[in-house]
């Protein structure tokens, strides 16, 4: 059952997470865990439900800032790239590092192959040379071609593979991403061309020129593989529709190549390219002409989100896929450095320059009809026309109130309903969806004082989210009694939406009065929202005792 009010896009900052200085974030496939790479080389895994730290991945060999974080599809592995040119593969459950590879250049981005559950291949985009496929077991790298000139000139000699053939491109990073199942890599080069490359041999199979030919900064595939997004230096985000079949991409490409064999190399690549991708939409801000940063799709591909790359502002633009700008989220005045949309919920997470992770969610308006099922919410006033017999003493229509439910119908209590958001059910056996939570011990002498119980936490928990409140009716005062440390942190709270709680309280006071209840109960209900010290053991202890 879904919350009917969720399913759109976020609107306000719900909470923030602080732990060290976080740089790069990634959700696991189900959105239950959020991994964040930090400035000190460690990677923190947050339990997204409790907003607490579930695990820390840290090793003495890496103390340079993390440049990117990537989960394997089944959630068992995390690949981390760092500024010391290394790639580290971690086993999430045990928190142990599986392997570490040092490249020739710092990889700005590293992505695990999405097709398998224990991927050994990854795609790394180094600082200033061609993206490469790295075999994590052997350390072998296969560079991908980034320019079709290389091909039409019968390719450079193997020795120059790691250098870009075109001198102009050698100092700008090239963007690349895997297709949904990983058999292809989409590369966006500095000439504004999208190259479709077979990941096994690094050879270009198709080329799509982007109008304007600007350097491509980011290239991202939507989760369902149907759309591709490019972010170019000309400040435009472009959405392409993927025309290839998702499962047999390579074969379809080969077929196309066969059929167009009579053309010369470049013409053929362009022709095949036109059958792979077609330009769908362009997004730009015509007024401010802002550069974009970290653009990505929402989990269902319905929304596109991009951060403003302008210094000193933390702005997130949300468009629907058709191109309408639906929202601009404005955060505190700290530049945005990374962005991620939750895989299934309308939540966006952004990282600011000073290392804080902000969680943006929908601004919740209370669904009153959920509390009182006899009532139905109306958008606006409706004229009510009485029924003919409405005021009769015994209205006809109210007589037979028998339920038309057949009690003899079979009821199925064991069949599992598949979640449509996760179509690859074959993964679910080995999938890691959550990390087991081990409660941290209270110190013996302080077990009866609840103030202490939170400050007794292990360090990592202290740096967890100090505020677990949400905007809305559940924004309760329960944390206000906690230790002074957390009260001081209250000064840092920025743009927390407080208004709804007052409004909500008023409305609740009016609406949740049930006709059959005495005024005592509705008063105590309101009291419990505002003031914790309700309840005087009013009710007799009839049940736990004889």
């Amino acid at each position, binding site marked *: 059952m879904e919350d009917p009010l969720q399913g759109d896009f976020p609107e306000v900052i719900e909470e923030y997470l602080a732990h060290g200085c976080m740089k790069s974030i990634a959700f696991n496939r189900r959105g239950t865990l959020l991994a964040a790479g930090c400035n000190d080389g460690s990677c923190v895994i947050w339990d997204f439900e*409790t907003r607490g730290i579930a695990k820390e991945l840290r090793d003495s060999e890496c103390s340079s800032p993390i440049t990117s974080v990537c989960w394997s599809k089944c959630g068992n592995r995390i690949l981390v790239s760092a500024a010391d040119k290394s790639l580290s593969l971690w086993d999430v459950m045990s928190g142990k590092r599986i392997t570490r590879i040092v490249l020739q250049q710092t990889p700005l981005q590293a992505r695990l192959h999405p097709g398998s559950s224990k991927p050994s291949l990854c795609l790394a985009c180094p600082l200033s040379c061609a993206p490469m496929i790295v075999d994590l077991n052997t350390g072998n790298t296969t560079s991908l071609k980034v320019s079709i000139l290389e091909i039409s000139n019968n390719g450079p000699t193997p020795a120059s593979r790691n250098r870009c053939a075109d001198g102009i491109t050698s100092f700008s990073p090239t963007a690349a991403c895997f297709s949904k199942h990983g058999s292809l890599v989409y590369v966006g080069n500095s000439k504004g061309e999208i190259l479709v490359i077979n990941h096994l041999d690094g050879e270009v199979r198709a080329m799509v020129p982007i109008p304007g030919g600007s350097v491509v900064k980011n290239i991202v595939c939507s989760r369902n593989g149907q759309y591709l997004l490019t972010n170019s230096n000309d400040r435009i985000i472009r959405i392409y529709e993927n025309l290839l079949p998702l499962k047999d991409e390579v074969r379809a490409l080969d077929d196309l190549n066969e059929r167009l064999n009579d053309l010369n190399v470049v013409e053929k690549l362009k022709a095949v390219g036109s059958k792979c991708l077609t330009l769908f939409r362009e997004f730009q801000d015509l007024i401010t002409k802002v550069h974009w940063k970290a653009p990505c799709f929402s989990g269902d591909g319905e929304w596109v989100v991009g951060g403003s790359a302008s210094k000193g502002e933390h702005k997130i633009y949300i468009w629907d896929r058709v191109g309408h700008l639906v929202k601009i989220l404005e955060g505190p005045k700290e530049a945005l450095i990374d962005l991620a949309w939750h895989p299934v919920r309308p939540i966006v997470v952004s990282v600011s320059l000073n290392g804080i992770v902000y969680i943006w969610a929908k601004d919740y308006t209370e669904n009153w009809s959920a509390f009182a099922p006899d009532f139905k919410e109306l958008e606006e006033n409706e004229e009510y026309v009485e029924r003919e017999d409405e005021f009769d003493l015994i209205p006809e229509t109210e007589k037979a109130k028998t339920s038309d439910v057949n009690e003899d119908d079979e009821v199925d*209590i064991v069949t599992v309903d598949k979640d449509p958001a996760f179509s690859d059910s074959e993964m679910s056996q080995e999938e890691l969806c959550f990390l087991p939570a081990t409660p*941290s011990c209270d110190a013996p002498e302080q077990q009866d004082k609840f103030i202490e119980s939170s400050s007794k936490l292990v360090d990592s*928990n202290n740096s967890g989210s100090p505020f*677990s409140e949400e905007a809305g009716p559940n924004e309760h005062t329960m944390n206000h009694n906690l230790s002074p440390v957390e009260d001081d942190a209250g000064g840092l709270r920025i743009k927390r939406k407080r208004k709804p709680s007052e409004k909500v309280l008023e409305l609740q006071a009016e609406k949740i009065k049930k006709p059959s209840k005495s005024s005592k109960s509705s008063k105590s209900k309101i009291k*419990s929202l505002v003031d*914790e010290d309700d309840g005087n053991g009013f009710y007799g202890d009839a049940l736990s005792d004889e």
Partner: protein
Amino acid sequence: MSTATEFKPYSLSQTLSGHKRAISAVKFSSNGRLLASSSADKSLRTYGFTNSDSDSDSLALSPMQEYTGHEQGVSDLAFSSDSRFLVSASDDKTLRLWDVPTGSLIKTLQGHTNYVFCVNFNPQSNVIVSGSFDETVRVWDVKSGKCLKVLPAHSDPVTAVDFNRDGSLIVSSSYDGLCRIWDASTGHCMKTLIDDENPPVSFVKFPPTPSSFSLAPWTTLWLWNYSTGEFLKAYTGHVNSKYCISSTFSITNGKYVVGGSEDNRIYLWELQTRKMVQKLEGHSDTVVSVSCHPTENMIASGALGNDKTVKIWTQQKD
């Protein structure tokens, strides 16, 4: 009273005594190796199987640990999914987290302002939900013990709380006659279920596998589909007018609904036909809690103060 041709009657196989006052709850762990009971005598006890034989005739439970520390009687308890931890809800307004094998107290969760009446872990066991006489439902972070949410759930004591099998929903029931369903991650109310006459709801529970049904007694035991809000089946014949008696599903050998009763018996009904197939006798006071073993055909029951025992019932093997 068994009328179904395939139904094998249960019979008493063991009685476990030790608690000094009324039992309030009994629960099997999800790995099926432990049984836990809570009592008004302020303690919890666990019992383990002594025999690792697969022959269920020789499966016997023996007392393993006692968990003391609560200052008042305990009303409810729950195992974490990996059976390593127990959480208990008490009249001393706290919840306590215990380490199962050693019996030591790990954590005390404070925040409720009145008796805590019911508690459950979510399937991931990173979160605990509790319901209290202070009319609220609270969601707690297991790792840190922090209260994550306070739901303004009801206008009367909350009698039961449960998570559905993927942990996305919380259901709560209360004396105010309502059952409410909440989104576990946001705390928003999704639905309210109300019976015409508004009688107090004493218990509610989701079935063991993900589906849209749950069980709730409003003096009669109702099975309802919470997505549509329809009441589907009623199970009657037992007596339940004073106490909050738990009921559960038995799915190990055919599908049944099992519930305790104030006439000191345990009632078994066939899930689909609603026919009562057996009444188990043996307790000398109201049977206030029942639990079904996850894999064996075994029922555990606990009764109030005149009785103070936990009884184990198994089906005869042919």
